């Protein structure tokens, strides 16, 4: 009896000690169980284009959170076979959290046969100091039936902001205006001025905090930023831009996206896409937060200024010599970081991280019954991923060296 009580107490302590860091532990392959009504699950799959919520119990590592809400999610990744899921812990129970999280995303990985593009990118971004969600992998079971391998993605919300931006004088920096950028099908946008009417900004910048504030509070500063970027001559740009945009963080973000050859990011092939936009607490200054990077690692020779001339903000920044130099410097530093051989490793950080993640998910990916690609496709994607880092790092180092007017190191440029 005493032993049982001791074990129970120890188990309880163990459970209580778990945190979101354990859930997002990059070294672990998790198991997540969802208990739902079978009719709800069929309806969610049938109506996967809709955002209807269904109740579910979620169990991870022996802990169950009841009364959560799940819904289909994604844009191009929506699937009726292997639905991407958003899990809201406070959907039916006000203020309920799980591991202090209000929600999380289960990314179905249907657009990436390698399975690791996004998670490697987010780890790379975090290493470079770019605000990015934490990610891990999990086998997801619904009613005890394996649905497949998913990426567990931290939601961009006030908790993530607190983790990312920390505290200033004891004040947690998570009470600003957070927007999810919405890509509008058939209406690509490249930071051109959309006019003074805030209605033009509302569908693109979906507020995730302070939803009840006025339109001018929410979108007014965005309209102002876009207008000033479009209307201000190059020489005057820093004075109007820097109070409204963290330029250093922006250059780091765009350089990081370029390093990983992201085709569908800020300078994406169909306009801007895949980011959150955050106006810092009690400040007019904005920062970008990375999101949905599964179109990264497009090609090794992805130009270091690809489509910069198409985007008004990027073009104007690159026209200013100081910013231009800082961008190339940031990109060069990113490449150096990606290629850095860490202690105990025999290859650069990016290559080692890719290999580690691919090895971690290998069995689960092959056992995934719902993935829309074959195991041979996965094997080919794995090989292509592992072929990427070294040539890419060399290419970026060579090109940035040229751009900065530096002498290339021996062997960097072919």
């Amino acid at each position, binding site marked *: 009896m005493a032993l049982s009580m001791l074990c129970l107490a120890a188990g309880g302590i163990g459970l209580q000690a778990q945190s979101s860091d354990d859930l997002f532990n990059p070294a672990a392959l998790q198991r997540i169980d969802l*208990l739902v009504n079978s009719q709800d699950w069929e309806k969610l799959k049938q109506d996967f284009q809709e955002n209807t919520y269904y109740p*579910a119990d979620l169990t991870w590592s022996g802990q169950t959170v009841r009364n959560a809400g799940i819904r289909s999610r994604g844009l191009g990744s929506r699937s009726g076979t292997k639905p991407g899921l958003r899990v809201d812990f406070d959907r039916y129970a006000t203020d309920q959290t799980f591991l202090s999280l209000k929600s999380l995303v289960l990314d179905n990985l249907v657009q990436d046969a390698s399975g690791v593009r996004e998670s490697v990118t987010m780890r790379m971004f975090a290493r470079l100091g770019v605000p990015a969600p934490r990610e891990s992998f999990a086998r997801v079971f619904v009613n005890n039936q394996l649905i497949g391998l998913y990426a567990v993605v931290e939601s961009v919300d006030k908790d993530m902001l607190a983790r990312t931006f920390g505290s200033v004088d004891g004040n947690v920096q998570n009470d600003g205006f957070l927007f999810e950028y919405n890509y509008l099908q058939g209406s690509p946008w490249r930071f051109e001025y959309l006019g003074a009417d805030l209605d033009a900004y509302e569908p693109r910048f979906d507020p995730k905090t302070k939803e009840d504030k006025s339109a001018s509070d929410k979108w007014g500063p965005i309209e102002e930023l876009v207008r000033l970027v479009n209307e201000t001559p190059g020489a005057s740009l820093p004075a109007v831009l820097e109070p409204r945009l963290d330029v250093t963080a922006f250059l780091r973000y765009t350089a990081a996206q370029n390093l990983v050859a992201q085709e569908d990011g800020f300078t994406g092939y169909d306009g801007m896409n895949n980011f959150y936009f955050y106006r810092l607490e009690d400040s007019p200054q904005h920062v970008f937060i990375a999101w949905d990077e599964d179109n990264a690692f497009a090609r090794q020779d992805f130009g270091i200024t690809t489509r910069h001339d198409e985007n008004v903000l990027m073009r104007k920044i690159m026209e200013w010599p100081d910013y231009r130099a800082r961008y190339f410097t940031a990109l060069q530093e990113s490449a150096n970081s990606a290629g850095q051989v860490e202690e105990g490793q025999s290859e650069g950080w990016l290559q080692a991280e890719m290999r580690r993640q691919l090895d971690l998910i290998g069995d689960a990916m092959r056992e995934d019954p719902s993935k829309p690609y074959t195991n041979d496709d996965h094997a080919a994607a794995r090989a292509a991923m592992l072929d990427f880092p070294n040539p890419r790092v060399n290419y970026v180092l060579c090109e940035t060296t040229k751009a900065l007017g530096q002498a290339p190191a021996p062997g960097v440029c072919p």
Partner: protein
Amino acid sequence: MIGLTLLVACGAEQAHAQSTDKRGFVWNDRPSIVFGEDLHVDLRARAAFDWRGFDPDVDEDLYDLNVLRVGLKGELTRHFDFEIERELDSDGEWTDWKDVYLNWDTFDAASVRGGRFKMPFGFEQNLSRTDLDFIYRSRISTQLTPARDRGVTVYGRALDRALTYEIGYFDTDGDLGKLEEPQFDTGEETRLGPTYAARVTGAVLRPLVGPDAALRSVRVGAAYTNGRLPEGLNSLRGESPYGFDYFEPVYVKGRRQRLGFELDWTPGPTSVRAEWIQTREDRLGQGLGDRDLSDVLGTGWYVSGTWIVTGQDKDQNISMRRAVIRGGPGAIELGVRYDVLGFGSASKDGPPERNPRAEHILENSDRIWTAGVNWYPMEHVKVVANAIHEDFEDSQRTPKAGETSFWSGVMRLQIVF
């Protein structure tokens, strides 16, 4: 519209006084067509216009044409009678059919009604909307009773009306019980109903008291329905008088049952009325992992009292001998009602939850005080003023999140032939 209707009402009053011919088109309390002894048809019309105010403001319209109906009601020989009534919208377009039925009532002890009409459940629900003591019915009458459906009943009375009964079979579960949410495509039968309904009332004190005793008019009753309930978000819902869903449907499957008790007592110019109703809906296989859940319950009651201060008898049609057009005050009636309707689950195990598949559903209820004045200035015309105070149990499910108490005021002008 209002002026025209009032004009017709005054004209009807005068025409009634002049009516002597009992064949053809006559005014016999209302416009009628008489074809001799075996057939007559009354032309009926009802209209009610509301003016409403809310605190806090919940974006409801200030004016509302609440009722606009026309119909025919008549007799075919002494064995049959019928009624046909249809609603119009504010643009004058036809909308819902209301009553469309034929009665065979040769025998008092056993008559038969077929067609579309109100199911025998709920005392207040079975009163005409324009015969109510208050502008809005109690919540149990609008949310828990089935109201009209297509079906057939056998009904009758005995012991000089001291005992009445109705028993019926209905196609679905009434207009108020119908399914409103998208249905699952499970391949199973998705049809609601059929529903069986029965109601018994009795003047239980009549044998015990003298012919002039006030308690002689006490009538109590009980009613029950039982119908098939298909799988889906198909439970009954809690809706405030102004259409806010304070309890949204939850997943159900199995049977829907109702049980109701009623009291009606109308001594002289006063009345006391009360009802208690509970609905019980199965949730077979509706839990997470498809386990059975405890029944979802809707439970409520009301008690009301009225007093005609001008002295007319409540039990009969209120006399208009002192109507305004004859120099009198008409009839003035004061009333107050308290009604409650709450929803939850039979099980109280574990923490209550708002999700529609919870074993222990977090309850929410609407508790309403209504105080009012009814003024009957003349035959066919009624003016009603009500003050309504609502109090919701769950502050997250109210017309304005975070606020639980609401005041509203409603005035109604209604004209009925």
